[in-house]
């Protein structure tokens, strides 16, 4: 039975492009789509980066730029958070890495439904356009925080409460449609279109991470979709799903609401939101495992445990959502349940951390640029994960919630670590995509500034949180007689801001490197890193449309046969048969 299905995969009809437009714009080739996703995501990512620098200007040097009013500040915070999480990280890790790696690593010609895949990118692009349009609608983009909590998200006390929030929600809904189309493709390809010999337990961990994240996405985005629909209805036609009776001195029309439940939105949002943070974490986990293994020239330690850890993290992530709501006024007894499940998640995650570090043990580490990023990922992730345990331990969250401690936690674990993995991954696969290496010196410079800089930005923020500095504060200056804020912390904030400017500027190095190496980079050859996984085994570099020659490769081993004793080479590609 199984064998019967392969011939079709080999002869799978591919849509061959005839013109520039079909080749680079409406392409059905997963590799082109991956690059499209990547470029778009990076472009919006730069906007989010600019927003963060605006915020840091205001926090470090309040009033220095008068243009940054409270309205604009909150709009910057919101767009920064939302773009970074959804339109950069999710889109990049799944849309770009997912598209590029899945067929290549599994020995498939393409995604199972290339046409749907193509549409997926264009719908994503549409969602980005709607997102950017929100900067130009009357009132500007929404300033409700990326969590978009009602009632404030749709009341006039918040910037962008009419057009801004509608475009935001619309854009999210469209994004979800795009994600669903892409995600169905990924899952079907992974489950139904692997090449001969490629069992699930031989898949590289990158694919495992992307797979689990996609499943999470398909099951979690519905909750966001539903809450977006309901909030649009609340805003536009005046239903009251999330809106209780309100006496707003700002907005007399708010009195038309009655009986709704703001907590319902938060539950739905986090039922999506917590899986979402693993949606961006799991692919990063997977990719980093591969990077570490390749560049340490050693098999990944405890592969099976790594896979099970991914699966368990995925499963558990659906029952921890309310750890974001410990002090949100939900049922107080939920704290017991969610604190327990949340800390249980630490166990599989810890296993992953141990296995990364144990892979380094007795390895033969090449400190290439991807490896540098991978190592920096592990340590920042440990810091961020451990501070997550503070927050997960319900009572400890009480003083820390909604302070800069939380900001520090999630930037360490999400704002820095997956970003580091994205960088590492780009340095690693750029030679495959373009046939040329990225410049090493520029890469190292970029790495050191980014890694040291981000640690300097975020580590001290934890301590602002201990002091009690709340997040989402336009400034912390004394108002009248009040001064909860020690003057010394002002200095700290300035330091953080300066570090942020430097790191932000250093990203230009990376962009420069991406461009210049495309034409000037050293030719890479077929397998510059001497890696085992299938993507390095295509007959051409960069791979042609269809990836493989007439027959698909046959897989004989896992993706981590590095430094096998008794072998001459220190790596054995997956499609090399065992010696008889």
């Amino acid at each position, binding site marked *: 039975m199984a064998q019967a299905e392969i011939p079709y995969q080999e002869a799978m009809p591919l849509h061959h492009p005839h013109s520039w437009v079909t080749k680079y714009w409406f392409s059905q080739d997963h590799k082109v789509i991956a690059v499209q996703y990547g470029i778009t995501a990076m472009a919006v990512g730069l906007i989010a980066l600019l927003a963060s620098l605006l915020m840091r200007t205001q926090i470090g040097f309040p009033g220095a730029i008068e243009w940054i009013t409270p309205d604009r500040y909150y709009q910057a915070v919101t767009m920064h958070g939302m773009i970074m999480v959804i339109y950069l990280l999710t889109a990049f890790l799944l849309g770009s890495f997912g598209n590029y790696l899945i067929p290549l690593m599994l020995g498939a010609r393409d995604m199972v439904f290339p046409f749907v895949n193509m549409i997926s990118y264009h719908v994503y692009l549409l969602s980005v356009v709607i997102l950017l349009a929100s900067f130009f609608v009357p009132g500007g983009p929404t300033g409700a925080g990326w969590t978009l909590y009602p009632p404030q998200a749709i009341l006039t006390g918040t910037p962008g409460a009419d057009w801004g929030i509608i475009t935001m929600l619309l854009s999210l809904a469209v994004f979800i449609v795009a994600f*669903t189309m892409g995600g169905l493709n990924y899952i079907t390809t992974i489950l*139904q279109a692997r090449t001969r010999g490629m069992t699930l*337990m031989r898949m590289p961990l990158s694919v495992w991470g992307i797979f689990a994240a996609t499943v999470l996405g398909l099951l*979690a985005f519905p909750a966001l*979709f539903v809450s977006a629909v309901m909030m649009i209805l609340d805003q536009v036609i005046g*239903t009251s799903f999330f809106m209780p009776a309100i006496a707003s001195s700002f907005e007399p029309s708010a009195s038309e609401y009655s009986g709704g439940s703001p907590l319902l939105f938060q539950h739905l949002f986090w039922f999506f939101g917590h899986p979402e943070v693993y949606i961006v974490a799991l692919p990063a986990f997977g990719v980093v495992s591969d990077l570490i293994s390749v560049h340490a020239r050693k098999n990944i330690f405890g592969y099976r445990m790594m896979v099970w850890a991914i699966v368990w993290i995925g499963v558990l992530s659906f029952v921890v959502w309310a750890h974001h709501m410990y002090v949100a006024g939900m049922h107080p007894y939920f704290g017991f349940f969610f604190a327990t499940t949340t800390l249980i998640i630490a166990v599989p995650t810890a296993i992953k951390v141990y296995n990364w570090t144990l892979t380094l043990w007795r390895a033969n580490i090449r400190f290439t640029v991807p490896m540098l990023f991978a190592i920096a990922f592990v340590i920042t992730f440990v810091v961020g994960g451990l501070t997550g345990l503070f927050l997960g331990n319900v009572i400890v969250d009480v003083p820390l919630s909604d302070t800069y401690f939380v900001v520090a936690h999630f930037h360490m674990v999400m704002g820095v670590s997956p970003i580091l993995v994205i960088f590492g991954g780009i340095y690693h696969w750029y030679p495959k995509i373009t046939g040329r290496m990225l410049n090493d010196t520029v890469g190292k410079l970029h790495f050191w500034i980014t890694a040291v800089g981000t640690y300097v930005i975020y580590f001290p923020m934890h301590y602002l949180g201990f002091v009690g500095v709340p997040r989402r504060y336009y400034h912390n200056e004394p108002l009248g007689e009040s001064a909860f804020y020690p003057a010394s912390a002002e200095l700290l904030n300035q330091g953080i801001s300066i570090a942020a400017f430097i790191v932000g500027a250093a990203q230009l190095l990376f962009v420069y490197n991406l461009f210049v190496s495309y034409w000037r980079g050293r030719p890479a050859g077929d397998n510059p890193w001497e890696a085992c996984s299938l993507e390095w085994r295509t007959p051409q570099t960069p791979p042609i449309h269809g990836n493989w020659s007439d027959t698909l490769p046959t897989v004989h081993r896992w993706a981590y046969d590095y430094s096998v004793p008794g072998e001459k080479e220190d790596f054995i590609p997956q499609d090399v048969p065992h010696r008889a």
Partner: protein
Amino acid sequence: MAQAAAAGHATIFEDWGSDVTTFKGVPWGKAMMWIFLLSDTFIFSCFLISYMTVRITAAEPWPNASEVFSLTMFGAPVPLLLIAIMTFDLITSSGTMALAVNYGYRRDKKKAIRFICATAFFGAVFVGMQAFEWTKLISEGVKPWGNEWGAEQFGACFFMITGFHGMHVSAGVIYLLIVAWRLHKGVYDKTNYEIVEIVGLYWHFVDLVWVFIFAFFYLW
């Protein structure tokens, strides 16, 4: 392979541990449809859970569905009459769909097309009745933002959930007609007509959702 379920739980490990395909004998399109339906289940469930939440937390009385949705027949109000007819209509369409799928398996193209069209017809009738129901309710004063009988979430949930379901039905009708047309044109002649089964899965799912809406919205 169709008898596989009977082959026992050991097949789970074999299937998940094998190469090439995990779901044995499941074509790509069908696998994709199943996974989509799983995702869609989450959408509808989130809608229904939201409905449950606002209904339980509502401090205003919840309108009595069987009164609101009654039709007057022969001078006496009959509760839920239209809804009952809609329910039977949808079940009928599910039946014709099941037959279409079966004829698809048998590669009996003509009959398959005929039953697909019948299904689409019943689907369209359903949408029509729903339009009638909506008009009637709106004219009686049930609006998404309020009604005369109590909690305003009643109307909001009703229009949102049945509307979303109605959109699924409408999309399904279009999908069915496209499939019928393409079958007729011979686009699928080289395959096993699994497209009929795929569109069937979608259609049955739409019926399935109605089962829950009927129970929780109209009866509860």
